[in-house]
């Protein structure tokens, strides 16, 4: 009974000016059907004005177990944040 159509990840832009956001996944035979199905499954109430579909197998994700070492380089770089710099209170608009 192996009729499994490929799995697609669906991203929807809810309005102009915002980025596409992952909303879930669905099965479809190709990209065209994936967009049509995404319209019916994820935007029945005007939730979107633009849809991206990506076949799930094409997504590479970082490994959560390596999270600490992966993001570690950013941990000790407080000088990347504006509050690291000491300025007197009277300086305005900065």
């Amino acid at each position, binding site marked *: *009974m*192996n*009729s*499994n*159509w490929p*799995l697609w990840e669906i991203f929807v832009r809810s309005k102009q000016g915002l980025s596409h956001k992952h909303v*879930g*996944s*669905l*099965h479809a*035979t*190709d990209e065209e*059907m994936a967009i049509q199905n995404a319209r*019916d*499954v994820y935007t*029945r*109430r005007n939730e979107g004005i633009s849809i991206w579909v990506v076949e799930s197998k094409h997504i590479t*994700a970082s*490994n*959560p*177990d390596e999270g600490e070492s992966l993001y570690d380089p950013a941990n000790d770089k407080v000088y990347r944040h504006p509050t690291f710099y000491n300025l007197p209170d009277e300086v305005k608009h900065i």
Partner: protein
Amino acid sequence: MENNYSSLEEKFQAKIDAEIKIEPKDWMPDKYRKTLIRQISQHAHSEIVGMLPEGNWVSRAPSLRRKVALLAKVQDEAGHGLYLYSAAETLGIDRDTMYEQLHSGKAKYSSIFNYPTTSWADIGAIGWLVDGAAIMNQVPLCRCSYGPYARAMVRVCKEESFHQRQGFEILLNLSKGTPEQQRMLQDAVNRWWWPSMMMFGPPDADSPNTALSMKWRIKRFTNDELRQKFVDVCYEQAKTLNVTLPDPDIKWNEDRGHYDYGEIDWTEFWQVVKGNGPCNKQRLDTRRKAWEDGAWVREAALAYAEKKQTRKIQQSKVA
């Protein structure tokens, strides 16, 4: 190794306790994964089978207004099933396996859908009581510890509210109608009340998995807690409909600050769960037939997609 496992489990529990969501690729205990696969897939099956009792009335809805609303509701149930199947898939079970479990009878779905819809008033009663009970269950699931399930439930709950209101409106109209319509209303409430009460599952004392599900924050309230909320809310709403809940023991309990209610017939519940409800066979037969009759569509769609792909490759070679 043993040591390592328990520290993983401790870390996992610490995340849960800190209300940090678990996401698909995170480590999780096997039992957590299995519990969620069972719960989410059963939930998905319930949405899909739940279309059948209502589909029964689409062609006989009393007006175009009622018909478009019922169609939209049935379409939503299909959508809810799809959100949930896709959430379950993130745990490593594939779609066909879940369908197979439903069609073979191995997987359960909510027993409420094994009752027949014999009058139009039933569509109203399903919206009010069945969707009402479902919402009671589902709202806390929006805060479930498993991210994809919680996110699916947020979408479901937003949409479910229209379902309940359309049901209540149907009943409200009947309550203002002819004596015969009022009788229809009361009859529907009489038949749907107790099965709706059973939707929360067995009493806490007979629900051995509840403790673990609460510890893992899959569940936030016990079956009996949710059932009590449901009784308290419905009793008040019934007054607006001028209808009586078919339970002579319902009465306000000043000490508890809740309504007491009568004994639930758990023998009936277990009979329906085991497959002996009025419509179990009919529901499964309909599901299987839909799946089998749709086989050629699934095959044709795949063949068409392949043909398009081949043509694209050939064209790019020519160019």
